[in-house]
């Protein structure tokens, strides 16, 4: 049944693409780009093949959630890079450098700086203590039911925020390439993602991410090299010309509008750094490797790829100022400085077309599409595992659920999440997607990270402290975002924001930490004393990896 369905869906996607091409033919603005269409089809066919293969290898819950724990450090490093460098990275950050210059580069350093910290303080403990989800660690010696419920709720919140960014990127991209209706594009992405995750689980998701990371790194590098060749590979020439034509002038290389007050800058730095360490789909990747050694290597490779690619993006954005920003072909109505065709996030795509023609545009578009699918699949899997492994198997069934039932629940959860993603994508069409990711990070930093790090490092953490800390971090981060300008004014249409800053981390993180501390310290129950005592064994396991979940045979 599974095989038939996969095949049927693979066939189904072809007429959709053909239809898309027709739609483009009807509007004059965008010519049918057969290169892009063919590369899209090749990618979809390839990933469907992988999913078909992965489905035959996905039998147990360990296969489904963590690919049996047999991924190598290098593979996982690529997959983490593939999971982490989203459409928001490629499209949103290139666009941010294009419009704001140096601000975009600051954002990228913030996105990167969390990685060394994850390695030094978290990677080996995550691998030694966790099995399928990061709640395995937070609930290790605490009340399973309550702590897992909390962790699952905050994971799902992060997943939803992140999904919004990905879906909006997908909609804009496919709209531009095929002239497809935005909503139809969103549905296509949502459905493809459901197929990958439900049939292929973590095996398919990992390989989609690896292929996508290789495509992204090579595609981005090619665009960057072709663009830089127009400036004789000289950063000085590029900067001279860019500052001469950009409306910010010399201010292009100054921290600017996005970080105009110190509170926003610090809050952003905190949110992006510790948010990385609290993203459920990233944390989940640490359970797919054999042991702590491979977990460390994963971070080494992943952070190398991420650091390299951010610098590529920086150059792409700067080159875009001249190559895209000075070319009337890319503006609506042909007015330079007006609205970019396809919206502000399309700088990277226009740049690819300008330096490499339709062939390169097609390739980069396929890359971006693959990117979205890979990240969305990782998110869906993380969200589904929170629902099936944490809530269904451990909270509702108290660990008594059969593997088959647990996998079935996670597949149903994936499909539900797919529809949630579709709905959210439609609701948030007009938001800047890089900004949206910042919000997801803020929630991850305030809701997931404090409880996770305290559970690993502080023996005094009790169930009561973890619950109060986790929920307060989650609620405060969400409320700060809700009352900030980006949702309260821009989405809900109110006149003035109730919370003056757009980044919640600086305020929500201390709330979570302080409340977790106070409510643990004042917890004098018998249970709390046992939980504190249980830390000793957990500590030895965290340090040595003895008793950690091992890789399954294949």
């Amino acid at each position, binding site marked *: 049944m599974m095989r038939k369905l996969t095949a049927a869906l693979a066939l189904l996607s072809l007429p959709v693409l053909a239809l898309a091409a027709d739609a483009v033919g009807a509007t004059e603005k965008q010519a049918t780009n057969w290169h892009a269409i063919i590369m899209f089809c090749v990618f979809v066919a390839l990933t469907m093949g992988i999913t078909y293969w992965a489905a035959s290898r996905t039998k147990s819950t360990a296969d489904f959630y963590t690919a049996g724990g047999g991924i190598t450090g290098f593979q996982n490093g690529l997959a983490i890079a593939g999971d982490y460098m989203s459409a928001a990275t490629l499209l949103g950050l290139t666009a941010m450098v294009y419009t704001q210059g*140096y601000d975009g*580069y*600051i954002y990228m*350093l*913030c996105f*990167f*700086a969390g*990685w*060394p*910290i994850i*390695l*030094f*303080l978290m990677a*080996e403990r995550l691998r030694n203590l966790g099995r399928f989800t990061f709640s395995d660690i937070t609930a290790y010696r605490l009340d399973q039911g309550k702590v897992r419920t909390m962790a699952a709720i905050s994971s799902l919140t992060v997943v939803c925020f992140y999904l919004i960014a990905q879906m909006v990127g997908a909609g804009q991209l496919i709209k531009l390439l095929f002239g497809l209706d935005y909503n139809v594009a969103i549905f296509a992405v949502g459905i493809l993602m459901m197929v990958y995750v439900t049939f292929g689980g973590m095996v398919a998701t990992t390989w989609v991410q690896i292929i996508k990371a290789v495509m992204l790194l090579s595609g981005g590098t090619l665009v960057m090299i072709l663009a830089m060749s127009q400036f004789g590979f000289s*950063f*000085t020439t590029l*900067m*001279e010309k860019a*500052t001469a034509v950009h409306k910010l002038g*010399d*201010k292009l*290389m*100054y*921290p*600017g509008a996005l*970080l105009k*007050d*110190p*509170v926003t*800058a*610090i809050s952003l*730095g905190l949110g992006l*750094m510790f948010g990385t360490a609290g993203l459920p789909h990233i944390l989940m990747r640490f359970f797919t490797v054999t042991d*702590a*050694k491979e977990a*460390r*290597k994963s*971070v*080494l490779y992943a*952070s*190398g790829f991420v*650091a390299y690619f*951010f*610098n590529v993006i920086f150059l792409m954005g700067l080159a875009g100022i001249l190559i895209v920003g000075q070319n009337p072909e890319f503006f609506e109505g042909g007015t330079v400085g007006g609205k970019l065709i396809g919206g502000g996030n399309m700088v990277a795509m226009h740049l690819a077309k300008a330096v490499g023609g339709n062939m390169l545009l097609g390739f980069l578009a396929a890359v971006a599409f693959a990117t979205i699918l890979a990240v969305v699949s990782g998110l869906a899997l993380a969200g589904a595992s929170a629902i099936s492994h944490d809530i269904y198997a451990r909270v509702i069934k108290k660990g008594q659920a059969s593997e088959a039932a647990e996998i079935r629940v996670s597949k149903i959860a994936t499909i539900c999440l797919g529809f949630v993603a579709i709905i959210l994508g439609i609701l948030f069409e007009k938001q800047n997607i890089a900004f949206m990711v910042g919000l997801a990070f803020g929630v991850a930093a305030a809701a997931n990270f404090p409880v996770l790090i305290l559970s690993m490092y502080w023996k005094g953490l009790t169930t009561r402290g973890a619950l109060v800390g986790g929920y307060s971090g989650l609620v405060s981060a969400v409320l700060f975002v809700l009352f900030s300008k980006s949702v309260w004014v821009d989405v809900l249409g109110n006149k003035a924001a109730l919370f003056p800053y757009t980044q919640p981390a600086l305020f929500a993180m201390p709330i979570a930490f302080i409340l977790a501390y106070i409510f643990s310290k004042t917890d004098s129950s018998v249970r709390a004393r046992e939980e504190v005592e249980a830390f*000793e*064994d957990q*500590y*030895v*396991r965290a*340090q*040595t*990896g*003895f*008793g950690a979940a091992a890789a399954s045979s294949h």
Partner: protein
Amino acid sequence: MSSAMYERMRANPKFQELVARRGRFAWTLAFVVLAMFYGFVMVVAFAPASLGQPVSEGSKLTVGVAAELFMFIFFWVLTAVYVRRANSEFDSLTQEIVKEAWKEQK
């Protein structure tokens, strides 16, 4: 059974040594990264203009770009340093601890 194993490992002086050595190393590196990164964020927050200055007279490379590029490279080098030491020295120490705990059980 497991708990007894953990108890023996904890009692092994090598365990204390592992924890102390790795802890000191990891926290030192983490401190370097945190100090540099938040030092940089403070400059962004309170003295943004200084980042826009050229590194030298007439250069198009600004202090901010140079500092960030340095951090991208330096932080990655630190991860390599940590992985190298953890995957050799700390891991073999860990293996000894586990092996000795097994031996005691017999």
